[in-house]
């Protein structure tokens, strides 16, 4: 569904990463790891088509896939109500959902009770739920998540996790950037590690050295 071929990214003269080549299939979930500044967010933006790679190519193998991008920023207009925000994104993406559909999506994101309140009165967690509602409305073929759970409470995290798994279940290609290896590795089919400007690991979670060490320790 998504293919990266020898992708590199520079900021000025500084190399962030190079020679990143991999493919992402539908119905899969990949966990993208790396230290701060390793280029995880940059790579995700390249995958989304929001940024151009300095070298190499990123291309979609499916025709005009719907792309969902959920990051720390919530994409919320504070002066609009939750329902108006969602209606705006519906129109931007050319969808035909009715107001009832929008209210159902808000209910799924657990903020239906605040549908007519301005988003500026929402807490960070509620704003992120509204952002999640935008993704649920879109039902993307490719779902790119850049530390979406940062600052969320346990209930919101659980909701996010449930919807991410649901997206993978209906065949979406999911790529998740996270720092919480212990929590998110259990969800992923595959781990990618960006380290020292290159893709240092691309494989199964069970064989990922830090996790394999943990497993061996458990067996011992």
């Amino acid at each position, binding site marked *: 569904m998504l293919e990266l071929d020898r992708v590199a990214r520079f900021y000025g003269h500084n190399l962030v990463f190079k020679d990143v080549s991999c493919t992402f299939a539908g119905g899969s979930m990949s966990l993208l790891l790396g230290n701060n500044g390793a280029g995880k967010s940059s790579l995700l*933006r390249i995958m*989304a*088509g*929001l*940024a*151009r790679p300095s070298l190499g190519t990123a291309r979609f193998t499916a025709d*005009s896939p*719907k*792309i*969902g*991008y959920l*990051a720390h*920023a*919530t*994409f*919320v*207009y*504070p*002066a*609009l109500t939750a329902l*108006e925000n969602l209606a*705006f*994104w519906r*129109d*931007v*993406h*050319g969808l035909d959902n009715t107001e009832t559909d929008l209210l159902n999506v808000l209910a799924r994101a657990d903020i239906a009770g605040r549908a007519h309140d301005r988003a500026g009165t929402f807490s960070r967690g509620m*704003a992120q739920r509204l952002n999640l509602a*935008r993704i649920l409305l879109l039902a993307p073929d490719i779902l790119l998540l850049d530390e979406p759970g940062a600052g969320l409470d346990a209930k919101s995290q659980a909701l996010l996790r449930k919807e991410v798994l649901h997206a993978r279940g209906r065949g979406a290609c999911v790529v998740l950037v996270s720092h919480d290896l212990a929590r998110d590795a259990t969800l992923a089919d595959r781990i990618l590690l960006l380290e020292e400007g290159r893709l240092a690991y691309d494989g199964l979670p069970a064989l990922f050295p830090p996790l394999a060490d943990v497993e061996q320790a458990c067996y011992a």
Partner: protein
Amino acid sequence: MLRMTLAVIRKDMTLTLLRGNGLVQALLLGLLLIFVFSLSQGVGESLSARSAAAVFWLSSAFCQILMFNQLYALEEVNNSRLGLLLSPAPIQAIWLGKAIAGFVLLLSAQCIFLPATVIFLGKSLSGPPGPSLVILLLTDTGMCALGSLLGALAQGQTAREALLGIVFFPLLTPLLLAGTGIGAQAFDGIDPDGSSAWLGLASAFDAIFLAAGLLLFAFLYAGDE
């Protein structure tokens, strides 16, 4: 594309007119300019019709800069720009939506600037209304096509915002000349040059700025940091 354009217009108009996100500052700046120029007249003196028209267009131009800064700043609050860029619609829909929203807001502001010019600068609207209205719409069209393009350039960065004003005014000169030329006729009813040349000039620059907006916007408005 049309649906996204309409969505952007509706959202921007709601935020600006109904939720008070920014029109007041732009209006006050324009009115302040007109008022300050009125102080340059001595007792019993009156600015020439051409000067009054120039003050009107200067107020409109300053107002326009603030408006487009504000319209594009709406997308920066929670990084909604990225969400817009992920839309399947052509990216030019954003430029067009902002330009049309800016056009409506500018016309609204001019509905206040025009009587303010008449009152503070002691002018009357004695010229033919037809050419004046046409040149008003043509000049506004060009200003908004260019303003929407440069507003995208200005978003986010303080240094770039300064650049907007610097780049904006020289490019606007032909349109402002046409607006001032026909505006002078509107204020004193005298038609020394004829209006057709000014209308032609404004139309030509409208076409250039509309084409530039369509072609260049995708390069200026991107998801890159």
